């Protein structure tokens, strides 16, 4: 078990999310930065679909009530075990009674903790991911105990030689494909979209990120149609909304761009006031 001593801004259990239920309106959810979460799981020899702990802004404190093996990945918030700095993106043996905490922000927004065997929460519609309206619990709180799945604890080797490629955490480039309504844009609107730099507004969450700079438009509203995590919608006010993992399944604003899977991870590690630039990828 892992005891939550402090849950900070937002700490939750996430896996790769719920699929197959979007036709009844259920969002996918799941880890915001799949690269970091998958990496942490890989390092402790877990399966990709094992659930991890997602911590926003390194503000939580966790006590391990048993000996285990973990990997801390993603955002770097000066992780400490019993007050001493620890290495991230590598295997760590944890002794019963140890306390994991965080300090100063170095880079990124979301930190992932993979625990050997995976962590458990109720499986609802095929996923352990916390989500409002779907799971009873939507965030971990002080005093909660997280169960570690030790039924399947493999003694298999951990992959400590795999290297974490942290470049994406410093990238401001968001690679995109044309969205279904891209051709609604005029030449000037397209140029602005591809050349301007966009700032992330304080309205950014697991559902979506609203960007500050506007692309003036007078598009007619459209009949609701399917949307995806990573879809960039252009609203009548001119502001862009980039949908993220907890987004609704349908929407009525023009879908001008679609982020690549990799770029969703890049954006997941950004927050208020960070700037991004879209880079259009040809093809698909």
């Amino acid at each position, binding site marked *: 078990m892992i005891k939550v001593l402090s849950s900070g801004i937002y700490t939750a259990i996430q896996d790769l999310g719920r699929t197959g239920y*979007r036709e009844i309106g259920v969002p996918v959810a799941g880890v915001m930065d799949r690269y970091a979460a998958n990496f942490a799981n890989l390092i402790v020899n877990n399966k990709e679909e094992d659930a991890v702990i997602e911590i926003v802004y390194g503000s939580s404190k966790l006590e391990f009530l048993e000996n285990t093996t973990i990997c801390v990945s993603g955002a770097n918030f000066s992780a400490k075990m019993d007050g001493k700095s620890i290495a991230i993106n590598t295997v760590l043996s944890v002794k019963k009674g140890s306390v994991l905490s965080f300090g100063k922000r170095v880079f990124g927004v979301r930190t992932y903790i993979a625990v050997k065997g995976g962590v458990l929460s109720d499986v609802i519609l095929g996923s352990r991911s916390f989500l409002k309206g779907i799971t009873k619990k939507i965030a971990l709180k002080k005093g909660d105990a997280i169960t570690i799945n030790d039924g399947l604890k493999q003694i298999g080797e951990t992959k400590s030689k795999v290297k974490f490629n942290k470049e994406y955490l410093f990238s401001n480039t968001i690679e995109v494909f044309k969205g279904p309504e891209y051709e609604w844009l005029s030449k000037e609107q397209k140029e602005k979209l591809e050349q301007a730099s966009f700032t992330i507004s304080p309205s950014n969450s697991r559902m979506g990120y609203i960007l500050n700079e506007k692309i003036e438009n007078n598009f007619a509203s459209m009949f609701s149609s*399917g949307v995806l995590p990573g879809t960039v919608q252009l609203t009548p006010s001119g502001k862009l909304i980039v949908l993220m993992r907890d987004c609704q399944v*349908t929407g009525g604003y023009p879908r001008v761009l679609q982020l690549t899977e990799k770029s969703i991870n890049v954006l997941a590690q950004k927050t208020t006031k960070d700037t991004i630039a879209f880079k259009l990828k040809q093809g698909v």
Partner: protein
Amino acid sequence: MTYELKYKSYGEFSILIEWEASIDTSVIRDINVFKANILKKEAKVLQDCIIGYHSLLIVYKNKLEEVHKKISFLKDIYMHKKKEISTYDYIWKIPVCYDVKYGIDLLDISQKTKLSKEEIIQLHTHNTYTVYFIGFLPGFLYLGGLHKKLFFDRKPTPRLKVPKGAVAIGGMQTGVYPQESAGGWNIIGNTPVSFFDITKETPCFASSGDQIQFTSVTEEAYLSIEEEVKSGVYKMEKFII
């Protein structure tokens, strides 16, 4: 009937198929027949199908390497699609208590439309509504078929809390809030029936292409149905279309 469809690549995993922009029950029927035919051939490689008013978004489990080939394959399925593959559609009877205790906007609508409360209830329960698709919230049905006299603009400022089960009108649409949420539609009643129940094998009873008919019940009946829903013995009334 065969429509002219547009196929668009959408991200690395998905293909969007679009019918001509319209809100039309025959289009939604065609979408559902096409979807059933795609599922028959592609179920193993598909992750999700999301239906919109005049669109079908197909999400694959893996990255699409050869989109154009996949589109040709889908076009071929559409050309040779068989109607009978599609499953039954149902009409669901939904009990609603239109007492002003639940229908907190009824009097406002009545004043502004110059329809009596009874006329509003009569018009709302008279029509049968088609489920176009489910979106916005888990179990939120987009319903078409509202009587013109009941068209009523959304509230300028949404309420922060609309109760679960609220039956409401927003512009040209009517619908039911499946869970407590923020919302700008005008509330005319409440149903004790659960539109999204995570404990059920099928969390949402309805699917695209089904029909909904609201029936007016007294508060007494509402409360007894609510008890039955809570204890899990309530049986929904349904008929095959």
